[in-house]
């Protein structure tokens, strides 16, 4: 059980700032994913929590105890590395026992824990095997097992699924989430893969260029992105962005797109230039002449639906189309939007413009 607090954390490497003034509360028992492209500072943040790097400034507390400059082994936190960091010359059981023997845990207790962990991960039948002969997925389970046997206060994982093949990665995601449901151990998980993040996380922290851009549950991140970067990074296809014509005033309930008025949730701050954001599943196709004018550039089939690429004078956008109606390339169509799903961004700062719907949403994670 552990609550991890990060306060004004900073890390500089020579003249490169890897993490800039980050503050974050990782609640006890939550599965928190640090998500972002490579070089965004997510791994550096994790390594500071683990004690593998010391911050240039700021503080990290674990259940109220200042651990900022404690060595890794003094923190009671288990790190699971990307690579299968197992001892290849030892058997599975020895690999699992190793961290416990190091800590001087009594034999009876070791046996009890190994039995329990092997049961949870369904690797009982492998306990007598050598590491060398194991399949990738079994190795990863053993690596997970070695983290679990220590019964640490928190798990820290740095792209632990990155080296698995695609199908196995999805299975391990399910496996990890189940494990978390059973153990409820605070987990910090680093990845660049939004699918992993969405499948695993209670809370997601999106980072870029050393900054935390947003920290919230998957629903908040997906539906109320804090900026254009988050909106485009999450969701496939990503959120559509259309240019709004003219300035937007506070209190406005309509904006102009391609010469037509579009109803939006009441805007609460002004912007000189704005972008209208809408997810592909909230775009509706209508007969030509209604709504925004568009033309179908291409369609892709997904079984339950089609995704149509549409050309409009305000830009290209994608729409999810019901499987019963197949739009054909070249078709002229009208486009409508679900008003309550529309979000606006200040085009100059690329930040979310607050509106009646976005202000009503309460982020489930504290940061900043």
């Amino acid at each position: 059980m552990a609550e991890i607090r990060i306060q004004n954390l900073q890390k500089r490497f020579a003249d490169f700032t890897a993490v800039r003034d980050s503050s974050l509360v990782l609640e006890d028992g939550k599965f928190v994913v640090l998500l972002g492209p490579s070089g965004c500072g997510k791994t550096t943040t994790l390594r500071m929590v683990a004690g593998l790097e010391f911050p240039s400034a700021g503080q990290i507390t674990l259940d109220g105890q200042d651990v900022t400059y404690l060595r890794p082994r003094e923190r009671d936190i288990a790190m699971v590395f990307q690579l299968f960091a197992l001892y290849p010359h030892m058997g599975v059981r020895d690999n699992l026992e190793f961290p416990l023997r190091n800590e001087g845990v009594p034999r009876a207790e070791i046996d009890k824990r190994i039995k329990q962990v092997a049961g949870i991960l369904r690797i009982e039948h492998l306990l007598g095997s050598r590491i060398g002969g194991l399949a990738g997925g079994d190795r990863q389970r053993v690596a997970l097992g070695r983290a679990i046997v220590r019964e640490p206060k928190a798990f820290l994982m740095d792209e632990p699924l990155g080296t698995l093949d695609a199908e196995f990665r999805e299975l391990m995601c399910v496996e990890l989430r189940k494990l978390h449901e059973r153990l409820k151990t605070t987990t910090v998980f680093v990845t660049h893969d939004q699918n992993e993040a969405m499948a695993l996380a209670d809370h997601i922290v999106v980072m870029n260029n050393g900054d935390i851009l947003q920290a919230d549950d998957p629903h908040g991140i997906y539906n109320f992105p804090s900026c254009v970067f988050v909106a485009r990074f999450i969701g496939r296809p990503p959120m559509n962005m259309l240019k709004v014509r003219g300035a937007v005033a506070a209190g406005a309930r309509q904006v102009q797109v391609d010469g037509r008025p579009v109803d939006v949730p009441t805007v609460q701050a002004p912007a000189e230039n704005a972008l209208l954001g809408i997810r592909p599943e909230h775009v509706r196709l209508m007969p030509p002449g209604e709504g925004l004018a568009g033309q179908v550039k291409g369609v892709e089939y997904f079984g339950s639906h089609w995704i149509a690429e549409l050309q409009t004078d305000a830009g290209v956008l994608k729409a999810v189309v019901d499987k019963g109606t197949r739009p054909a390339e070249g078709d002229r169509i009208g486009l409508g939007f679900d008003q309550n799903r529309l979000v606006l961004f200040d085009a100059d700062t690329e930040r979310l413009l607050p509106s009646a719907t976005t202000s009503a949403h309460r982020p489930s994670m504290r940061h900043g």
Partner: protein
Amino acid sequence: MASITLQGITKRFGEVTAVDDMQLEIANGEFFVLLGPSGAGKTTTLRLIAGLETPDAGSVNMNGADMTPVAPALRDCAFVFQQYSLYPHLTVYDNMAFPLRAPMRRLDEAEIRRRVERVAAMLHIDSKLQRKSTALSGGEMQRVAIGRALVREPRVYLMDEPLSSLDAGLREELRVELKRLQRSSGATVVYVTHDQVEATTLADRIAILEHGRIQQVGTPLQIYDQPQSIDVAQRLGSPTINVLPASWFAGTADPRAMHVAIRPEDVQLSAAAGSQAYAVIECSLVKHLVVAERMGVEVRARTMLDQALVPGAQVQMTFPPKHCMFFDAAGRRLAA
């Protein structure tokens, strides 16, 4: 350009029969996807076509000619592996030019340059051509591996999960690019994947494989709308198709029916009414999914909600008859 015919191909590895008496015809210019879980025999099938494995029985034909005894190098197939395998001591340019400089081809350098530059531009690696291949990111390396196959302009492209090591954005971009490329060049592509999105978006036709056998072959629409077995119905579609007991449909169903399957997007959700209520287990506003349970059976419904339903809430689910598919005890489709 080539058509491919597999006639009664069988391949065993010790006790395991990886490919079991397979019959398959792939037309010239077709984008053909082999879809199935790991261990289904997809990769083995691809390797048999390439000549990297020798079948225990049956033959591989291309354009009507028996290729079974022909060496891989003489089959004119370009193979793209899941894990990129580049020459670490060579630049990106030289990696891509390598197959064109092979003694069999030995194209002149001007032609090589033309092809490499064209393909590199298409794959957005034209600015990296002079880099050592080891100085690239994983996604870039895989693009070089794909590029090395494309420059050859072979009769057939064989691709084994070429996009699975890339991140979501790049995967989507390259997927569209690959399809465009295949369409414009008219090349025959045999493409192995376990990813149903790649299958439905790329394929002209899909073969569903399981246990070394073909379960069904058809266009993505045919496979999705008219699955001939429960296994196939469950292989395509996300979230997975619902399988309900036929007893819920007493009177309307064929008496031989054991299972009734309906896609999550066809289930209708409404406010609870009376004894037919379902209890919500999970509701995701991100996946647009509601999972609810009745009599121990979980039902998934794809639906757009503005407010999440709390677990335990009661809802009503209805199954429009025109979207219901009936299957017998062996999992075979019954005519409606």
